[in-house]
């Protein structure tokens, strides 16, 4: 097992290097120079030159890349072009919020989607099944921000059941219930697309498992249908979903950009949005890298989990 994980980690390294090169290259080719250099055409050419030099933007690209990546590797992410603060500080103050949101969304997606997907599969071709299918297609199709705005409109503004945004009541002391109260809507919205998708996959996976011979065996043993489905069906049906949950990670990260803005949730997505608007490249690049790393780690975890839960896989 350990060697397996190490091997997997080693495979990850060239992948991350490739991603870092691509990220770096994309930023180089993005139109316009960093915002600070654009804003004022009155900056005397000498000052501009000085700034470019200070930022190291006049060196050959490989040198710039090497300096950037060696900083990244040693944890020195540089300073933001805009706020001048260390990028690592900016990330650290937001990362927990994003992780909380994504974790909550994942949990919500799982606890909503799996039962519904199973019901849909067990009741294949019934009205229940059709209704679930319809709703889950809608869930994939309807954009996050719209669902978010609608929920805010009704549940927060009209009924006042939930706060409009933020992670906690302004200027209040830490209170776990208050946090959950604030977390619920954004997590729900962030979870919608994945819930819908996961429902679909659970259904498909369950349908496939339902026709397996070992399910027939379980029935022949006399077990009640619920035991057949939940004990013998579910575990097998969930195996392929583990990988799926890892694949969901990028959607979650993508979704968080929108959801965090809509719900004023001070996370990385929100920061990313702001940074893109201001073309704050050091921040954009690190968030992109971080996302890539998260995705890679997510996949790794999925593979390891898969290996743990599926006895057929040997290392």
């Amino acid at each position, binding site marked *: 097992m350990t060697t397996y994980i190490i091997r997997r980690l080693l495979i990850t390294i060239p992948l991350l290097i490739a991603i870092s090169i691509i990220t770096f290259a994309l930023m180089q080719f993005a139109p316009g120079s960093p915002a600070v250099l654009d804003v004022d055409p009155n900056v005397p050419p000498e000052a501009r030159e000085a700034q470019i030099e200070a930022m190291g933007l006049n060196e050959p690209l490989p040198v710039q890349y090497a300096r950037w990546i060696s900083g990244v590797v040693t944890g020195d992410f540089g300073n933001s072009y805009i706020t001048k603060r260390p990028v690592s500080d900016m990330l650290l103050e937001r990362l927990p919020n994003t992780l909380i949101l994504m974790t909550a969304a994942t949990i919500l997606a799982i606890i909503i989607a799996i039962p519904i997907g199973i019901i849909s599969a067990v009741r294949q071709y019934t009205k229940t099944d059709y209704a679930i299918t319809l709703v889950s297609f809608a869930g994939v199709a309807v954009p996050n921000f719209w669902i978010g705005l609608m929920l805010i409109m009704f549940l927060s503004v009209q009924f006042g059941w939930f706060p409009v945004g*933020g992670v906690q009541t302004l200027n209040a002391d830490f209170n776990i219930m208050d946090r959950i109260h604030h977390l619920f809507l954004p997590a729900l919205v962030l979870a919608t697309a994945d819930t819908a998708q996961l429902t679909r996959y659970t259904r498909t996976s369950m349908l496939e498992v339902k026709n397996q011979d070992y399910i027939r065996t379980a029935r022949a043993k006399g077990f009640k249908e619920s035991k057949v489905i939940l004990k013998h069906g579910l575990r097998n049906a969930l195996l392929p979903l583990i990988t799926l949950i890892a694949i969901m990670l990028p959607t979650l990260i993508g979704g968080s950009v929108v959801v965090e803005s809509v719900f004023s949730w001070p996370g990385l997505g929100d920061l990313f949005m702001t940074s893109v608007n201001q073309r704050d490249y050091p921040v954009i690049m690190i968030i992109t890298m971080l996302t890539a790393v998260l995705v890679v780690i997510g996949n790794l975890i999925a593979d390891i989990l898969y290996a743990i839960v599926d006895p057929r896989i040997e290392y």
Partner: protein
Amino acid sequence: MVKKTQWLFLVMIFTMGMLLAACGGSDEGAETGADEGTEPDTEETDGEDVEDIDDENGDSAATGEPVEGGEIIVGSDAEPNGLTPATVSDTASRDAHDLVHAALYRQTVEGFDVEPDVAVDLPEVSEDGLEQVIELRDDVFFSDGEQLTADDVVFTVGIYLMEDYAGTSTTLFERVENVEATDEYEVTFTMSEPDAALTASLEQAPIVPEHILGDLETYAEIEEHEASTTDAVIGAGPYVMTDWTVGQYINYEARDDYHNEGPYIQNITWRIGDTDAQLAMLQAGEIDIMNAAPQDVVTVESIDGYNLAEEPQFGYNYIGYNQRNELFESANVRRALTMAINREAIIDGIMDGHGTVAEFPHSPEGPIYSDEIESIPFDQEGALELLAEEGWEQNDSGQLVNGDGDVFAFSLLTNSEALVRTDWIVAVQQMLGEIGIEVETETMEFGAYLDRINPPNWDFDAIAGAWSLSLDPNMESLFHSRNIESGQNNIAYESEEFDELSTDNRAILDVDERMETLQQAAMQVAEDQVYTFMYYPTEFQAYRDNIQNHSYNSRAGLFRVQEWWIEE
């Protein structure tokens, strides 16, 4: 479970219906907005001017005596990029500076003039204009208790003059040769050339504490210092920043040793959230004040307990013609283009009427506006006549062609973030199409847009843009021929008359005389139709109706908030 599913389904159907209804109902309102903050700001002008309070729109006439206490929560869609004024110029930063810092001069409430703040009076200017002496008040303290002295002023101005200065306000003090503390409370500016705009420049340069930042040697160090980037900031303004939790909120507390009137409201909290979120917070009563986008005006008006203040923006939208392109060489042609565009219709149709037609390169409320400015009517026949004089005639298929048979065709470029402009350039395309001019519209991301239009590329025919104006109505940077190669005169307007009138306006120390000169220069620009001046957009601020003595102008987020109070 069946029940639950059906319920979900119903909710789905219901919300779908809402979506359709929402789409149907908002086709006018939704088109405006969101160009603020994306438009290129002329640097020396990183602001708009003070406006009179608009009483009709509910700006509170103060009732009774000011009361101390209370708090307001302010919606803000951005956080300051920095807290040392020399380093940044974005709107959110400026709003924060207004709260925590004080400058030698500040805007008057009544107009867009300056009045002394930390200074005792206006500068004493020497005969030749090369020396300006300013006396400081001796009762001004920073929020950490240190007294503000001439050293702090010298240090503050010094930042702009540092060798590695890379902030956005390079032109503010370009005429300052030396600044010196000639007494504990007296500062002497030695100028390379006379500068009538010095007070306006000082208004934009709030004083930062020398005793905190004074040891730093380079501009870069100042930029990165915690007093420039965190709630460790120290200033001499009416409020002190007590807590900045990034991405969430910023708390300010009233100072009891502030040197001017106020502050009355004890606590101010900035709550960070995008405009949609702010609107929802306003509806839910979670915030007390926000700047409302034009398309949200109807919604805001329907919310009980809030007033809406309305002011024209101190700036204008325009179409700029690249005069390197021979199509646009002639002022007659440019005038004809303006005549062929129905600006009223654009304001009414696309902007819900939230704007007024512009004819002049400065605000009607600014000091150089002239009532004599001729307004150019919407007159496509007249436009065709003018074009005919320039050799452009419509051919059989209605195209406008010259003697060589070339079609009058150009591309009109704007940045995609400016949603209102991306809408009206299409209207312009259609209107010019009516007289046979072929316009191709083009939109691109702001960075790419700037790349295209700025030196040394100038790769455009015409652009749709916007300027925010400066307190000082000097418009050399936009229209003077010496700013063609490297400045903001990217359309390459060249006029001997304008150059002559404006070249040394900063040296004219008599205010009236200077304003008159600048007015003539502006008239020249209008006469030449350097741009098609499109309109002055209207801006809005919603605030809770218990806020007294509220004043609003689009140059500040919370204008003179220290003089507001909350009715009990």
